[in-house]
């Protein structure tokens, strides 16, 4: 497989070493997450290992989210328009990698990640996309300081809350499917980042996050459904390979450069991966 762009690997990824849930991180460009995982012997694999592994992944990503969001918010507050635009997409990546977990905390996800049409009449538009609108549509950071500060507060709260989240292998499996559904619903249509058109950053983060979830539970699956595990691994590779041509510099080309054929191809590869992945929850439930 072709090396991943460095930025993608800055999203924390997980290495499983001999069934021990050590949250070792991340990566070299030549080591995509799925290939750096070393599944433990099936007999040793336990649900507790999977949960610990994925929990570590979530916590690493929320740490990264706080760090990057603070830098992004600082640029916004300082009125550094170009810098803020550069930091926007990378700041979102760790969030997009673990979004289903964030969604379990009621209002936090809408506060952080609502798109303008998600907000009902009379509601307040906040979060990343509120700032995105200002940076790209208005080419300005004016009035964004309170929004940026609230965003930092919200992601910091998320960082604390994820330590309390209840996880089990089936939830992790369904979360991985949920991430791919996110791709189908809003990334592949260009609706997520409608001002900046940086949707492909989010899309890749969704896929990498789903892959990390899969990697955490895969040891519970390989002995029971080896063919399914292979199909899923191949599905992730196919999606990530299909994204490769759109990489540009440290990131991606703008969504607006994709043709309908490009988006259809990506969308159908996502569906082809998500369907077998949706079979996993029933298998890991039986495994417990």
């Amino acid at each position, binding site marked *: 497989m072709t090396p991943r762009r460095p930025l993608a690997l800055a999203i924390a990824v997980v290495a499983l070493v001999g069934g021990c849930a050590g949250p070792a991180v991340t990566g070299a460009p030549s080591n995509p997450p799925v290939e750096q995982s070393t599944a433990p012997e099936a007999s040793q694999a336990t649900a507790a290992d999977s949960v610990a592994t994925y929990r570590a992944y979530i916590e690493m990503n929320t740490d990264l989210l706080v760090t990057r969001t603070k830098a992004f918010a600082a640029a916004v507050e300082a009125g550094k328009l170009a810098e803020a635009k550069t930091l926007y997409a990378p700041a979102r990546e760790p969030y997009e990698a673990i979004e289903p977990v964030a969604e379990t905390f009621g209002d936090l996800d809408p506060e952080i990640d609502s798109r303008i*049409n*998600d*907000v*009902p*009449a*009379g*509601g307040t538009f906040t979060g990343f996309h509120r700032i995105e609108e200002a940076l790209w549509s208005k080419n300005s950071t004016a009035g964004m300081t309170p929004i940026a500060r609230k965003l930092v507060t919200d992601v910091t709260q998320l960082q604390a809350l994820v330590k309390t989240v209840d996880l089990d292998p089936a939830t992790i499996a*369904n979360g991985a*499917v*949920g991430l791919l*559904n996110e791709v*189908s*619903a809003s990334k*592949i*249509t260009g*609706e997520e980042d409608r001002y900046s058109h940086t949707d492909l950053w989010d899309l890749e983060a969704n896929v990498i996050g789903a892959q990390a979830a899969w990697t955490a539970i895969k040891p519970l699956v390989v002995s029971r459904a080896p063919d399914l595990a292979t199909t899923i691994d191949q599905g992730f590779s196919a999606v990530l390979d299909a994204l490769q041509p759109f990489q540009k510099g440290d990131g991606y080309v703008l969504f607006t450069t994709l043709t*309908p054929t490009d*988006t*259809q191809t990506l*969308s*159908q590869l996502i*569906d082809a991966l*998500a*369907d077998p*992945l*949706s079979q996993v*929850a*029933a298998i890991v439930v039986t495994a417990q």
Partner: protein
Amino acid sequence: MTGGPAISRRRLLAGGLAAGAGLAVGGLGGYGFARESQAVDLQAVVEPFYGPHQAGIATAAQARIQFAAFNVLTSRRDELRVLLRSWTSAAALMTAGEPVGNPAGDPNAPPSDTGEALGLGPARLTLTFGFGPSLFGGSGPDRFGLAAQRPAALADLPQFAHDELDPTVSNGDLCVQACAEDPQVAFHAIRELARIGRGTVAVRWSQLGFGRTSSTTAAQVTPRNLQGFLDGTNNVHGDDEPTMDASVWVAPSDDPAWMAGGTYLVSRRIRMRIEAWDRASLGDQEATIGRDKQTGAPLTGSAEHDTVDLTRVGADGKPVIPLSAHIRLAAPATNGGIRILRRGYSFTDGIDGQTGQLNGGLFFVCFQRDPRTGFVPIQTRLAASDALNEYIVHVGSGLFAVPPGTAAGGYVGETLFG
């Protein structure tokens, strides 16, 4: 000009489906020969056009819908009145199974009926007309001097959370709902009305629907929607007159007087994220809806019409019908007793060119006495919390004042246009 009596077409149809199919392959093909006897019966049934209320509301839901919204091109009120008279005459003919003109007249002139519904029978066709906010000026100019007569209940719908409305499949000055047992009969009706109105009105958007998703009388079996669930179990029934009077028909004491006997129609084109739904586990699907997929029973019961018990708590200490379940949030008990008459249909419009995914879902239509106390509060609650939101998105919207019905010699809209 109106051709022979309906019975001759009925004989034609009953005498051999091949004859009918020769004229209209698509229409009869939709029923298939397996349902021949039922199809023949339904094709011959007339739904009365005239009456105190327009048909197509309390009427037992037919199998198909063709819905169209129109922009009014003229700014002359008298032209609009003439159009409504012409539409009423045409609707009275077509709902009786008659052509609107002569499909085989002067060889040098275009036929005055387009012909594709010949021999298909009335097929329970109903035509229901409505007026959108923009006809009364709305946010634009008051082209017809109607602003003062705009009902307060015809207030623009608010932006609901997660709406992704496409203006090209939303709103409109006028609407016509054509429902029939035969899709070609419904299509023909809209086509003729558009043809008759050409130059005065233009179709803004239209929607073809199949597989009614609500039962609207106690006798109708509850159908399934494209998510595979029974839909419309606790609907208002059109033959339940006390509930219709309380919840659906505008009362003579309501404002404005011209709407007495009318109702308000809200349409929502709801795209289903079908691929995502299909990979949701059965347990998730049932928790999302709040019903058993097979039987349609609420999760607190064992048969479809068992009581939806919103208070029951399971062994795990959580509500048996989850707090975000669709039937909990849509239930009258959750909405201060509000009831609306749902009359939606499934739709599919091929694939989405951007994603290659199925472009289908629910074309939701509902009727109520006042949307401000009907659809709006219910949808506000659903948009905020419904677990189903993960699998659907509202992409089109329409709001129309549906005036009362008319008698022979009158026209639909006469209470407004005089």
